């Protein structure tokens, strides 16, 4: 891969939240890259810091509790963390847009869906009223909603339709990067299949890069090119999608796969859940954050800070027992 194709580079991002008297380390030294036209999946459990990473990119962390403590986010040659708010506004919704999980609360209930798309367009493009409306209608049709429904209000749409409207809105300015935070979690499977299919098609057409946040490994397998697995605010495994699914190394990633009911429907096979739960992000242990739940952990896992190391061909793993885990598998 050539250097020139890089669209977004996150270096050593650390995000903290301050609540009452605690400091919550939501994201710890995360580095990742998104190439043009590529979809990177961020996988992890609730509270792992996936959404926080996406919000840091757009600088929409809740204030004043959340702040990026260190690191840089390079997009188009500029560090998004240090440019002015004015410049950031030009990027937000224009070059980078975000789709949120809940389609029910992301639309304004008293403005027609067409108007809402038009407004998103007008914010960033100098078009006449007529052109704006035409583009908005085109966007609606692109996501499979008849243009005649331009003047209808969100409550007249079903959940799947609303999520399409949101996608249309996010794509209206032809962003280079789309941050999709669990875009189909609130939808039914058959509708999810429709939306995923549509997103894949649009991505193909518009050559948009995507950061897809999800907890569903099935969706990852279908849509992503690369995967970063997040645990307790850290990337613990980072590789191409086939590599992760065929050859997972980190005990946590293995645990995730073990937790899924097997695809062949074998009921006699007992699920192999990961014991315990994620550590409190306000009191993260030293060393490997997963050691507490890991079947392979030893004293040295707990005492040493563990680096994300290349185990070959760009497959990064944060585990000092890689070889041991591979054997045990």
């Amino acid at each position, binding site marked *: 891969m050539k250097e020139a194709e890089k669209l977004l580079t996150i270096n050593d991002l650390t995000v903290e939240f301050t609540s009452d008297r605690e400091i919550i380390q939501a994201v710890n030294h995360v580095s990742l890259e998104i190439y043009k036209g590529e979809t990177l999946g961020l996988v992890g*459990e609730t509270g792992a810091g996936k959404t926080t990473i996406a919000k840091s990119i757009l600088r929409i962390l809740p204030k004043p509790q959340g702040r990026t403590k260190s690191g840089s986010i390079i997009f188009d040659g500029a560090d998004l963390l240090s440019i002015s708010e004015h410049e950031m506004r030009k990027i937000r919704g224009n070059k980078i847009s975000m789709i949120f999980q809940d389609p029910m609360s992301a639309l304004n209930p008293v403005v027609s869906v067409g108007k809402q798309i038009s407004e998103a367009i007008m914010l960033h493009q100098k078009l006449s009223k007529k052109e704006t409306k035409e583009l908005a209608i085109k966007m609606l049709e692109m996501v499979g909603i008849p243009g005649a429904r331009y003047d209808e209000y969100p409550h007249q749409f079903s959940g799947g339709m609303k999520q399409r409207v949101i996608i249309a809105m996010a794509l209206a300015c032809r962003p280079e990067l789309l941050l999709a935070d669990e875009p189909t979690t609130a939808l039914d499977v058959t509708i999810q299949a429709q939306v995923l299919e549509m997103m894949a098609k649009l991505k193909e057409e518009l050559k948009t890069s995507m950061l897809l946040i999800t*907890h569903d490994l099935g*969706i990852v397998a279908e849509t992503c090119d690369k995967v970063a697995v997040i645990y307790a605010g850290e990337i613990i495994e980072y590789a191409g999608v086939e590599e992760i699914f065929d050859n997972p190394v980190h005990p946590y990633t293995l645990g995730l796969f073990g*937790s899924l009911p097997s*695809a062949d429907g074998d009921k006699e096979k007992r699920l192999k859940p990961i014991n315990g739960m994620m550590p409190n992000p306000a009191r993260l242990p030293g060393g490997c954050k997963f050691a507490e739940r890991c079947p392979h952990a030893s004293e040295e896992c707990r005492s040493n800070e563990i680096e994300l190391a290349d185990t070959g061909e760009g497959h990064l793993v944060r585990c000092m027992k890689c070889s041991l885990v591979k054997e045990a598998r």
Partner: protein
Amino acid sequence: MATILEVQNLKKYFSTPRGLLHAVDDVSFKMEAGTTLGVVGESGCGKSTLGRTILHLLDSTDGKIFFEGEDVTQVNRRKLRQLRKDMQIIFQDPFSSLNPRMSVSDTISEAFYINGEKNKDYIRSETRKLMDTVGLARIFEYSYPHELDGGRCQRIGIARALALNPKFIVCDEPVSALDVSIQAQILNLMSDLQKEKKLSYMFVTHDLSVVRYVSDEIIVMYLGQMVEKASSDELFKNPLHPYTKALLSAIPVPDVHHKKNRVLLQGEISSPINPAPGCRFAARCINATPECKKPQKLVEVSQGHFVSCSKVQEVK
């Protein structure tokens, strides 16, 4: 094995300003004691209403419910109290299903108090036993739900349901709100409890991979009606109803080498208010013909495999 539950032509309609909402429409099935019956379908298909109507948390509009051979459709207050000890429910949302102002031990012991147990020491020891059973550490005895994570809260919900020693439990999406690793812990716990206490589960969910794993038999529902019923293996190997096929093919498979052979459905689920007679899936079905506007019958196509589709022979 004995039949623990039999439902005949069960209907539950809600009256809304726009007309009658057919939440559950003419559902009939039987289930054996000690087994798990999965009920799948998308939101609004009436699967949760079905569970709640069987438990008498909602009054049925029409039809019959037999529990252990006895007709319990119309019950008086006393009978209902007895019945509720035998039939329990586990909810989807571990937080909203727990009273935020009651501690773990209060929530679990509540069932004993309400059902006439006076001996406080007994209640306390039983509550602790239940906590051990579901894997809740003693340290959480006086914790409140908001202090615990989703997995632990769901364990409280399970302990509460077990307190009265039920025979039959409706599990309404018990793991949908949980992360996969915690989901697996809870599923294992539920399967252990089933073996140990010979429980019968009615497992209501939209998650098809989970339902396949837990169920012996599966009912597929669409807009209040049962469109297909078969044993778990049979349903996944040989789905017959066009909706079941679409549903199964829509599951994202966590395997990069899996060949997608997806039946994409057009359109969305239609309104369950005043539905027209005939197949409710016809509007989205690729095989639909005018014939499908006639009321459909549930037909047993092979041993234990029921389908409600007049085109089933052609589809096959």
